[in-house]
């Protein structure tokens, strides 16, 4: 039963959602005046998201609590994590919510700058990985290099200074636009179709109960 019930539930919910998207009578079906079946199910999904949040909270507490109790490596960071997690949650829930100054200050002054700093590391890492990886070894790498340079220059003001978009072929910008609009769009569409088919086959396997790994099975 431990495996059969989730498989049956998965199939039924997939079928239900599919029918909601296809069949208008189902989408508009009212279980009572002014309340549709779809709205009730979408609210239940919302509740599941919220419950997932609580379960994540419980799981984090359990995992890091174990780390602290057993004094595993870097346990002091687990203490800090729990303090920050519960502290911030309590601040938001009981001391003014989204409008409270300390809550918004922590978000604006700590979380956003930290996020931006981490994202900015990409600029440095792309420089080092491009330097390390882009070596001209064959014809394909020459083509890739040339296209990369053209697209880079087409995106920035420097490219406009070197070869203006008013001149022959539209400058770097014109060529970059052509690359993006034709070869790039074609390859993105091809990959998109392939990815969709792969994803749809995966969804079918799960819906039909052929894929059981999400239940912890190895196969």
């Amino acid at each position: 039963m431990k495996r059969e019930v989730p498989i049956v539930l998965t199939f039924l919910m997939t079928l239900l959602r599919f029918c909601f998207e296809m069949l208008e009578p189902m989408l508009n079906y009212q279980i009572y005046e002014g309340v549709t079946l779809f709205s009730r199910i979408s609210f239940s999904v919302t509740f599941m998201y919220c419950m997932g949040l609580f379960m994540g909270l419980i799981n984090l507490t359990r995992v890091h609590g174990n780390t602290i109790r057993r004094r595993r490596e870097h346990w002091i960071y687990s203490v800090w994590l729990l303090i920050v997690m519960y502290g911030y949650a309590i601040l938001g829930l009981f001391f003014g919510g989204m409008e409270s100054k300390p809550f918004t200050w922590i978000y604006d002054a700590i979380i956003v700058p930290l996020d931006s700093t981490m994202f900015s590391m990409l600029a440095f890492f792309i420089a080092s990985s491009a330097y390390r990886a882009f070596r001209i070894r064959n014809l394909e790498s020459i083509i890739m290099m040339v296209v990369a340079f053209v697209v880079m220059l087409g995106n920035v003001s420097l490219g406009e200074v070197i070869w203006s978009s008013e001149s022959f072929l539209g400058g770097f910008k014109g060529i970059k636009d052509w690359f993006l609009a034709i070869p790039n769009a074609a390859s993105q569409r091809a990959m998109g179709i392939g990815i969709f088919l792969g994803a749809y086959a995966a969804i079918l396997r799960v819906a039909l109960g052929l894929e059981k790994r999400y239940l912890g099975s190895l196969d």
Partner: protein
Amino acid sequence: MKWLEKLDTIDPRWVYIIMAVSLVFPVLKPIGLAITIDETTTVPVFNWIESLQPGDIVVGDVAFSGGSEGELGPQLQSWFRHCMIKGVKVIMVAQWNTGERLGYTLLEQVANELEAEGISAEYGVDWVYVGYKPGGTTLWRQMQLDFWGACAETDMLGNSFQDLPLMHRFKKWDKESSKGIMAFVAGSPGLPTYTTYFPDYEIYVGNVAVQVPGAMNTLRAGQIKGLLAGLPGGAQYELLLNRPGRAVKLMDAQSMGHLWIMVLVVLGNIGFYMKSRARDE
């Protein structure tokens, strides 16, 4: 020419230091390189807002977090400023919970600046920040049928929709009540929510630069009508609006950063070639 072979193995720390200098220097001392307006991507977004009438409602989506704020923040602020100047009403939702608060901070900043200039940007009348609502794409689908019910009739700040005059004109998210969608997206969930569930709506997108190649085919297919492409898109929008700001200021830094990467690739290939030649000899 042994020193040329050393170009193949430049210490990464030098790469990072010079990159930092090439990004910071133009911000402190702007070079003033010209910015071209893109007719196929940026101008349609601008023209869309220009074509709207005062009182029309548009929906914006904050689907990014602090990491992408550098690119999408200026786009969001310029677009919002444009809407307020034109008298277009804005309802903001957020697909990302991590960007919800950030989006509000950015818009509040612009609203305060506009109020100081005498342009109306009153909360509840000219704009409402609904914020993030858990439930994923199922909830976004529900918003089309019953926006108030899907959002539990409250905005991000806890105000009831009953107390917000603008929300009385927006009971469901359909093509009659909103004149288009502007989604500022940095990942998932993002654009596919709209191309899948809002296929016949006027969709415009503000994207981070890395996602522009992926969004181009949706632009070419007509699934989206316009696209603000990363930092250049934000800078171009600021120039169209005649209000150069942060994005314009950062364009020079972007140029210098790109230049350093190109120089690095060339140097690396010179070193690689010299090494190969020495090995063959």
